[in-house]
Every structure is written in C-alpha cells, then in structure tokens.
C-alpha cells in the first residue's frame, strides 16, 4: 500500500486497533507507566502492526518492547539499535553511563540523522547515494568549521556552544552503542542535540539563548553589576551582541563578540556572514545563487582594499578594527560596520592617536 506519508489516517487506524488489542497492557498504560504502543507512523512498513496486524505481535514481543521502550538509552536520533524490532521504533536512547562518553563529533560515523533503513519514506534517498552525491559537490565554503560560532574550545564534555556545534574528529565515537545506519561525511555540518551530550557540568560553554532571558534584561543587569562591582579582570559572563552593518547590504546582522578571542576569528566569521552580499548572492528578496565561491576569491575581496572593518566605540567615534588589544576592543565596541575602503581612509590615524591618548 502506498505510504500515507502524513500518517494521519494510518494513525487513526492503528490507534483504534491498538486500543482494542492491548488489553493486557491497559493497566500499565493507564498509570502512564508503560508506553502506549502507538504506531504513529502510518507508513507502509508498519503494516505488520497496523490495523490488521496488531494482534499478530506476539505477547512477549510487546512486553519486550515495553521494557525496551522504558529503558533509557541514548541514540542518535534516527538511529536504532540492531536488536530492536525495526517495525516498532520509538527511537532509542543511550544508557545513562554512556552519556559521559558520548562524544560531540563523529569521526566516520555520522550523526547525520536518518530514519532507520527499514522505515524510509518514499522520497528519501538511501544515505549512500547522498554521500556520493555530496562528496562531489564543491561547496567548500560552507564546510569549514571555523566559521561556526564556538564559545569555548572543543572538549568532550557538554559543549552547547551556540546552536550549532562544530564537529571535529574524535576517537570516542566508537563507544556509541547504538548503530547509526548512515555515515555522514565530515562536511555535513550536523548537530548533535544538546540533550544527548550534556551530562558533565564541567564545561560551561555559552549556549545561545540560554538561560532564556531577554536582551533588555541581560543588558540592564550587566550594566547594573558593572556599577556595583569592581573590575577584577575576569572575563564577563553572558553574551555581547553587537550589530554589524555593511554598506549596501539590505539588512544587518548581529554577532556575539564573546564567542571570539582574536581579531582573526571575528574577521573570518564576518567574511563568511557577509560573503553572500559581496557576491550578490543574497539580496533582500533572498535569491541566492547556487554558485559556490572559492575561499581565496572571497578573501581577496575582503582583504583587498575593497572593504574594511570599523567599529563605533563608547564615545561614538568610528575606529578601524585591529588597532587596540582584543580585550580593550570588546570592552569599547558598540557596533561594527563593514565599510568600503575608500570611506575609511580617514580613520586609521585617529584610531592610533586615540589609543595613544588612552595609554
């Protein structure tokens, strides 16, 4: 039967039959302790457990599944352990002790998330196909890890930096018990869900938007505490979002200066972020072309005399970025602007003078 992709009808059918037949697990279900055996997928391969099939699921299988379903196992979403009944795949989760070992990065095993091979919607290609296709693609610009915003260096503990995690090879991937049926190429910038990795409180990387506090409140508290505390040289907590505008770009962006520690990092990140404007890929109507850009060509444009990076400091003056030590820069930067080189000619001498005056 053709898979009712959206599963709504299938789901109804399945549910009705499930309810009728699961008398033995009713009491359990009613306490909310056992998982209801719902086949919510409504996909064709679930036919063995849909309306006609539920009663055919052997009793012990059901019990096994209940046990397994309540077992805490952490698996990559979309993965399933080999011994699990492939027709019934509430996706698995790893045992608690594995959380400690769960690495952030795949080496060869991917965390590119796929449904298990046995449950494949009609439109999905097998992963092997996609990998081959992908490796041939040329979008190297998006594969570099260094443009992903990271709050801290990599580590195997909880790394919830930003809402994207950068993945670098790690040998601990092999400790994952559950199989990931698909392997992702390194270039597929996958995320591991923070929920699966954060167990150790050791690494307190900044997570974007967590705790969920509005910027207005954060900024107010930050400035209140600055008034109250002395400067003791410790790095400020929290985030430091500043707006970045660029001449000719249809909208501005925001970056968190706290996620960088050098000018180089900031510069690379901005290059990537604004590349589409330079090449004319992204207009306000958002019509990106599918051309990819070689990195060298991009850097030429930025490092060439075409654009310079400037910032507005607390006094309201516009200065060239790079003249003062990084710490001093973040303390005084209110916002950034990517200017055409010709517009920025007058800035350099002032910036140097100003820092001389300060020093």
């Amino acid at each position, binding site marked *: 039967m053709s898979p009712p*992709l*959206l*599963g*709504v009808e299938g*789901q109804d059918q399945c549910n009705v039959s499930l309810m009728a037949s699961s008398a033995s697990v009713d009491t359990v279900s009613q306490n*909310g302790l056992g*998982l209801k055996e719902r086949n*919510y997928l409504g996909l064709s391969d679930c036919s063995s457990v849909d309306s006609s099939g539920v009663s055919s699921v052997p009793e012990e299988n059901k019990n096994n599944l209940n046990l397994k379903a309540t077992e*805490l196992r*952490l*698996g990559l*979403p979309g993965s399933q352990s080999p011994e699990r009944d492939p027709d019934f795949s*509430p*996706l698995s*989760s790893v045992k608690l002790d594995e959380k400690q070992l769960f690495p952030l990065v795949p080496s060869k095993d991917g965390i*590119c*998330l*796929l*449904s298990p091979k046995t*449950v494949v*919607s009609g*439109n*999905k290609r097998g992963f092997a196909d996609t990998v081959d296709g*992908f490796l041939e693609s040329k979008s190297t610009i*998006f594969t570099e890890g260094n443009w992903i915003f990271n709050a801290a260096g990599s580590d195997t503990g909880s790394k919830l930096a930003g*809402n*994207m995690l950068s993945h670098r090879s790690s040998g601990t991937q092999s400790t994952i018990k559950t199989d990931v049926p*698909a392997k*992702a190429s390194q*270039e*597929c*910038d996958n*995320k591991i*869900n923070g*929920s699966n990795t*954060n*167990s150790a409180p050791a690494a*307190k990387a*900044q997570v*974007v*938007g*967590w*705790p*969920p*506090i509005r*910027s*207005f409140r954060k900024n107010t508290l930050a400035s209140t505490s600055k*008034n*109250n505390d002395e400067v003791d040289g410790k790095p400020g*907590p*929290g985030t430091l*979002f500043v*707006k970045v505008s660029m001449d000719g770009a249809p909208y501005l962006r*925001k970056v*968190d200066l706290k996620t960088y520690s050098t000018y180089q990092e900031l510069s690379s990140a901005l290059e990537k972020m604004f590349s589409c404007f330079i090449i004319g890929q*992204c*207009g*306000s*109507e958002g019509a*990106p072309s599918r051309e990819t850009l070689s990195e060298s060509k991009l850097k030429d444009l930025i490092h060439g005399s075409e654009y310079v990076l400037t910032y507005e400091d607390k006094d309201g003056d516009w200065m060239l970025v790079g003249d003062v030590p990084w710490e001093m820069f973040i303390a005084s930067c209110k916002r950034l602007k990517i200017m055409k080189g010709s517009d920025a000619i007058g800035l350099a001498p002032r910036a140097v003078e100003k820092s001389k005056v300060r020093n």
Partner: protein
Amino acid sequence: MAYSFPEEVLEHVFSFLSSDRDRNAVSLVCKSWYEIERWCRRRVFIGNCYAVSPDIVIRRFPEVRALEMKGKPHFADFNLVPEGWGAYVHPWIRAMSAAYPLLEEIKLKRMVVTDESLELIARSFKNFKVLVLSSCEGFTTDGLASIAANCRNLRELDLRESEVEDLSGHWLSHFPDNCTSLVSLNMSCLGSEVSFSALERLVARCPNLRTLRLNRAVPIEKLPNLLHRAPQLVELGTGAYSAEIRSDIFSNLAEAFSVCKQLKGLSGFWDVVPAFLPAMYSVCSGITSLNLSYATIQSPDLVKLVSQCRNLQRLWVLDYIEDTGLEALAASCKDLQELRVFPSDPFGAEPNVALTEQGLVSVSEGCPKLQSVLYFCRQMSNAALVTIARNRPEMIRFRLCIIEPQAPDYLTLEPLDAGFGAIVENCKELRRLSMSGLLTDKVFEYIGNHAKKLEMLSIAFAGDSDLGLHHVLSGCESLRKLEIRDCPFGDKALLANAAKLETMRSLWMSSCSVSFGACKLLGQKMPRLNVEVIDERGPPDSRPESCPVEKLYVYRTVAGRRADMPGFVWTMDGDKSLTFS
C-alpha cells in the same frame, strides 16, 4: 429569522461582542451575518503577521480602528532568530494608511518598525490615539518625535522593552503645548535623558495621565516634581532609584508618594539605594503590581517592602529575595496571583543566592490565588513539583527554568518527568508551560495525556526520541504554539502529525533533528503551511537531504509564501523542489 431583521439591529447586537472568537463564530452563521459583522468589526488581532496579508484583512474588514499584531517567533527574544528575518510592519502601515484613515490604535509585538513607518503613521491617521510597541526594534527617537509632534489626540505611547536607537532625548520636547490627551507614557527602555522641564510640563497638562514609566535617566530627586503634578497616577515606573542619602530628598519623596492615593502599580527601580525604599511605604497598601526585577537589593530590604504590600497581586523580583523572602511573601500577600523570579547571575557557575525550589513551594502553599509562575532557579525536585501541583490545581501559566540544562532531580538524580507530569495532571486549566531540567519522553506522554487545555509549550534540551514530540502533537488538543530547541526530535513525529500543524499558529524547532528532506516533504504536502528553513550555513540543498536543518519555523497561513525572506531563510514550496523568495 436573520434576514427579516434590519441590519442596523443586528449591527447593534454585534457591537456588544468584543471577543474575536465570538465575532468569528457570528460571521459563520450565514452570509448576511458575515457581511454585517465584517462591516462593523473595529478591532483585529493578528497573532502572526505572515498568516495573512494586509490586502486580505482590508478586503474583509473595511472599517477597522484598532490593529494588534505579532511578528517574530517568541524565541527571537533569546537571540535565536537572526537579524533580518522579517516581521516588517511597513507594508501594513502603507496599506492601512490608504484603507483606514480613521485608524486609532496600533499595537505591535516583536516587529521591525522603522522611522519611516512611524512618520507614515503620524501623517496618515488623523485620529491616532494608541501606539504600543512591545519588544520591537528598527526605529530611532526621531520616529518618536514624529509621533509626538503630529498625533494631536495621542493617548498612549508605550515602548515597552523595545530596542530603540537613542539619538537624543529631544523627541519628548516635540509634544505640542496643546497636547493634553496623554493617558499612558512608557519610555522605560530609552537611555537618553529627556528634557526634564518638557517632561514636567507635559505631565502637568495631561490631567488624564494614569501610567507614567520613566527611564533610568530620570533622577530620583526629580521624581517628586512629577508626582505632585500627577497625583492621579495609577502606575508609576521610577527612574534610577538612588541618590546621595540626604534627609531632604527622602522627605520630599515620601511626601510626594503620600499624595498619590491611586497608585496601584510600581516599576523601574534601577540602581536602588535601600534607604529610599521606605519613602514608598505610604502607598504600599494599595499596590497590586510591583516590578522589582531590576532592583539589586538584598532579601531583608525586599521583605520589608513586600510585606507592606498586603494587596499585592503581581510580583516580579530578582532571586535576591531568596527562599526566606518568598516565605515572607507567602505569609503576607494572600492575594498574590502572579510571581516571576528572575536570576541575578544567570551565567555564574555557582549559585550566588539562597534561592531554591523551596521558595516556590512556600508561595504555592501560602498563596491560594497563585496562577501564574515564572521561576528561575538552580535546583528542583520531583517532590517539590508534585507539592506545587497539588497545592495549586488552578495554575494557568507555569514556566520553570532550571539554569543548568538537563539538570535532574537534585535529590534522586532522576528525570523530572514525574514532577512535570504532576503539574499537567493536577492543573487542568494549564494554558502555558515551559519546562527545563532532565526530561525523557515520559514527560511528553504525560503532557499528551493530560494537558488538554495547553495552548503554548516551550521545550529545551528534553526528550529522547520522536515519540516525545508525537505525544505532544497528537495529545494536546488546544495547542497553538509549540517551540522547541535542542531536542532529539526528527522527521517522523513531524510528518506523522502534519495535519495538526494546520490547527496551530506556529511551530518552532531549532537545533533538533529534522532533515531537509522532511521539511521539503512537509512543504509539498501541506500547501496551507509555510515551512521555512532558517539556515545560516548556506542553501540546504548544498548538503545531503538527510542533513538536519538549523532551524525550522512552520506556520499556517492564507497568504502564501512570504516575499521578504532574507538570504538565510528558505521556504519549502510545493511548486518546486526548492524555492527561494
């Protein structure tokens, strides 16, 4: 029968219907009622500006006087929505400037408003009265000057928590001398100092002024000047509440407060010097709403203040209040309905205050009317949550943020499934829930089974598998808004419950496991949904289809795909395999 009633009679009857739901129901009765109703609808609320277009609204409701609209998804408050995403109000203002010359009210939340829009408002609507910009951005104080200068009948100018480019405080001086209509002014989000004499004169000549929320730059010594000129104030937001400790400042302040017999709400309190708090004691017995969430004062001072406010219904406070302070609150304020406790040091590794789950338990025990909670803390237990749930079964909004993601029950180290399960099981009227801590699919099963009136659910770092999401989507009958971040939810539950999404306003999923392929499929199969992928890594089709998207925003719409998407947003359209706007 309906068609034998004169229209005027029906219109008169409909004029008593204020709720949108009632009006919507009425308009479905028959064609003539639809027609009559649409001509007399004066207030329109649009929960998602992209769910409908200006033309559609104007076509259906030709005589609107008040528009309320929301733009960006809620998680934009926490920097999860990149700049440039959208929610521009200008197309709406442009369309309405032609169609609704009699427009009186515009209330916007999380939208991008420009000076151009403000100028257009000021020019186009001769009877403009109310402008509320909540968490908006994109405009400067120049735009405010246009509003002040041109809106002769302005009653409300409320900029709550908006991000305004503050060029100067001069905008306030643009209110003409003959402007006497002001009822509410909220400029608390602005940084610049306004001309105090202009402010004084404005306040003095507006006899109906009820709400005045000053910004931080207004010093406490000047506060009495304003209070004396506006003794009828009902809501006051102070400026910085600190000065050199001098008895004349104190006595002036105390005397000024004592004159304000109508005060019910207080806010502001930046930079509080505790010595000046007793100046307010004369009004405390009448206070029902107190926002101390910027007041960095310690528990004893907080307790002294709060225990004077016996009629308090709403308290927003920092966690400096600590468990002991909350106990005192529970003992004194028996009318308390809403409590929000914000973290003073959210990014610190160690707790800096003695605030635990116990504080919330005390309040739940002592305050029989408690129905709305927002609580930031660093530890929680299932036992506490069960107690809270049993104490307060009439809870309506429950938002708990345990600062460390995935923190377990600190006593048993178990997930907090049972605790939140108790909340949804006992609190049958629960409409809004935000969860945190260590949570497995189990909690979602509880939610799906019990939270039948839940309208908005926020989930972070929770769940084990698609089963969790499936429980929510299939079980929560009243769900309108679902926002999820960093959860292992993928394609299956989403696709299996696609039809559910048309019954909701919106779904947000970021840092989850929804693949690009699934998004495409969803977009193809559900033409009345806009399925938007936000991905700053570049076009999704430059990666395998199985690759998860960074962020996904799905919402129902009758306006089709939007035309103003930036380069990092792609809409999954049914017409092509991948479309860019």
